[in-house]
């Protein structure tokens, strides 16, 4: 067992960290307040080859692993949570195309995603299909070489701004989740429109739009995996997405912790920095321990993915633990800042609001626990 990064990994992360410190961090607050998709940041991610970390080199990617993708995501999220979330949501389109796409599909759709020329999004969630992913109502009806999509998707991250979408629709409602089919849909396809952008508690500049399909014709050649093979595409994509969410939570928690430590060491009360008080020290110790646990779980899940091992349980564990730990850490970061932490003057106020997202998206904490328990009980039966 080796917990050390290789020299190559260290150099890669150092380059990303430099970009985070020089570019992302200084404008993070501004990005959040703007309420506009941060195109400049997103384009730079592409320029710096960060949008295709695990994609093969022949399709313009870096040919690295999901572990590298995870560590980089953590750094991005720590510097600018919104940019980190965009990076994570992008992979939800890139990964299924990379994993299930034919060579032709990869040439056409993976390459522009891996180079960051196009941004991706994944459309599963609907008004009545969130945690209950099998209840997708969007219909796909075959018509010759095409499928006609009808229905709508909700809360789609990167929605409206992304150029390429992986959409889950049902091609055979009589078979329930076994009828699910994954389609690659390009922005601009007639019948594919965007509805309202959700007004959220935080992440004001991350688009979460409604996708509306009205007799939208998609070529059968755009089906990923196979017709009625969408359930598998969905489950695999969600598992990678869980690592992505865990990564975002670790990055955010680290940022909140860093802010809390810095504040505790400079804020003087009763003639000493408050970091001198055990009440604060215990908080910091718990926060750092929470972050370390989250990080190790997350890296382990990504490592298992890279090693070709089953990683769904670990991804769910990482996601539920890291997101709940992130909320605890951000809560304490505000507490350590006292009254100032409740004001917009300090970033921890934003971190506190942002943290809640991670406990909800890509499967709520409750769903993660179900996934973990299902696995555990199956494993127990096999024993």
């Amino acid at each position, binding site marked *: 067992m080796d917990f050390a990064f290789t020299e190559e990994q260290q150099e*890669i992360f150092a*380059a990303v960290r*430099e970009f985070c410190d020089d570019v992302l961090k200084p404008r993070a607050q501004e990005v959040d307040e703007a309420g506009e998709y941060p195109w400049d940041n997103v384009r730079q991610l592409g320029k*710096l080859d*960060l949008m295709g970390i695990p994609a093969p080199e022949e399709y313009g990617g*870096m040919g690295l692993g999901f572990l590298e993708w995870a560590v980089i995501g953590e750094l991005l999220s720590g510097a600018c949570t919104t940019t980190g979330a965009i990076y994570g949501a992008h992979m939800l389109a890139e990964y299924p195309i990379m994993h299930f796409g034919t060579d032709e599909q990869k040439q056409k759709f993976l390459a522009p995603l891996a180079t960051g020329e196009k941004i991706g999004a994944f459309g599963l969630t609907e008004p009545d299909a969130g945690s209950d992913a099998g209840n997708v109502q969007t219909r796909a009806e075959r018509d010759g070489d095409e499928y006609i999509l009808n229905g709508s998707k909700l809360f789609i991250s990167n929605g409206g701004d992304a150029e390429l979408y992986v959409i889950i629709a049902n091609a055979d409602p009589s078979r329930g989740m076994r009828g699910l089919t994954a389609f690659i849909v390009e922005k601009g396809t007639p019948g594919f429109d965007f509805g309202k952008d959700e007004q959220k508690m935080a992440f004001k500049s991350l688009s979460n739009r409604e996708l509306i399909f009205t007799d939208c014709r998609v070529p059968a050649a755009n089906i990923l995996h196979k017709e009625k093979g969408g359930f598998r595409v969905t489950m695999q994509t969600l598992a990678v997405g869980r690592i992505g969410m865990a990564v975002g939570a670790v990055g955010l928690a680290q940022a909140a912790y860093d802010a809390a430590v810095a504040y505790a060491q400079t804020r003087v009360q009763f003639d000493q920095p408050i970091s001198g008080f055990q009440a604060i020290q215990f908080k910091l110790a718990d926060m750092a321990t929470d972050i370390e646990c989250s990080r190790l779980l997350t890296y382990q899940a990504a490592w298992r993915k890279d090693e070709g091992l089953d990683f769904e349980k670990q991804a769910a564990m990482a996601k539920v633990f890291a997101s709940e730990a992130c909320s605890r850490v951000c809560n304490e970061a505000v507490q350590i800042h006292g009254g100032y932490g409740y004001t917009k003057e300090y970033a921890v106020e934003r971190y506190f609001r942002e943290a809640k997202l991670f406990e909800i998206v890509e499967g709520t904490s409750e769903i993660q626990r179900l996934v973990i328990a299902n696995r555990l009980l199956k494993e127990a039966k096999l024993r």
Partner: protein
Amino acid sequence: MNFIVCIKQVPDTTEVRIDPETNTLVREGVPSIINPFDENAIEAALQLKEKHGGKVMVITMGPPQAEKALREAVAMGADEAILISDRAFAGSDTLATSYTLAQAIRRIGDYDLILCGKQAFDGDTAQVGPGLAEQLGIPQVTYAIEAEIEDKGLRVKRLLEDRFEVVETRLPALITCVKQMNEPRHAGLKGVMKARKAEIPTWTAEDIQADTARCGLDGSPTNVVRIFTPERGREGERLEGECSEVVHTLIQRLREAKVL
């Protein structure tokens, strides 16, 4: 078009420490970076290459560890890099440095434009660029804020203290670049990987046929007697009391100091 960028590895600190015994820079424990103005020169070369085609070669004279700076330049997008390193070069002043760089560039041979930062972050002399142009007998344009290649000639906008100046010259030429010229790009991951694998040759005094009497300490007429950080002698004064009185006193003090 062949572009040569001369860079220097410097300590990453604005508070450069000096060894009081030897009067040289204390490098231990201080991370090294590419001299920031040299990053502007690299960026300018990369932009010119993107526009006109060609090759960007980066060179530095320095100890073996200066290779790291060259790899950083390759990561940014430079095509080739050469380390000019020899014990004989140790202790070079700006004259010996410009001579040594000129010898290396003579060996490279074919070039159209040499780019340098306006000065080094540590030494602050701003002499090596101009010295190098003199050694090579080519035109030099210092403090470039814009540089355009037109019809095989060069048009440069210079940033002077109170004005801009636009000059034209023939190629080959040398320019020194200011900070305001551009925003140096960050290295992408493909660049980082390329830099890891890049072969960076080391050229010694012999390789560049340098006359060692003109290199290093022997070739440096400059004798540094002492380097020190000036102490801040003057103390500020805080005026306290009623606002109207304080303003009155302040105006009086400023008059005494002949500021008003």
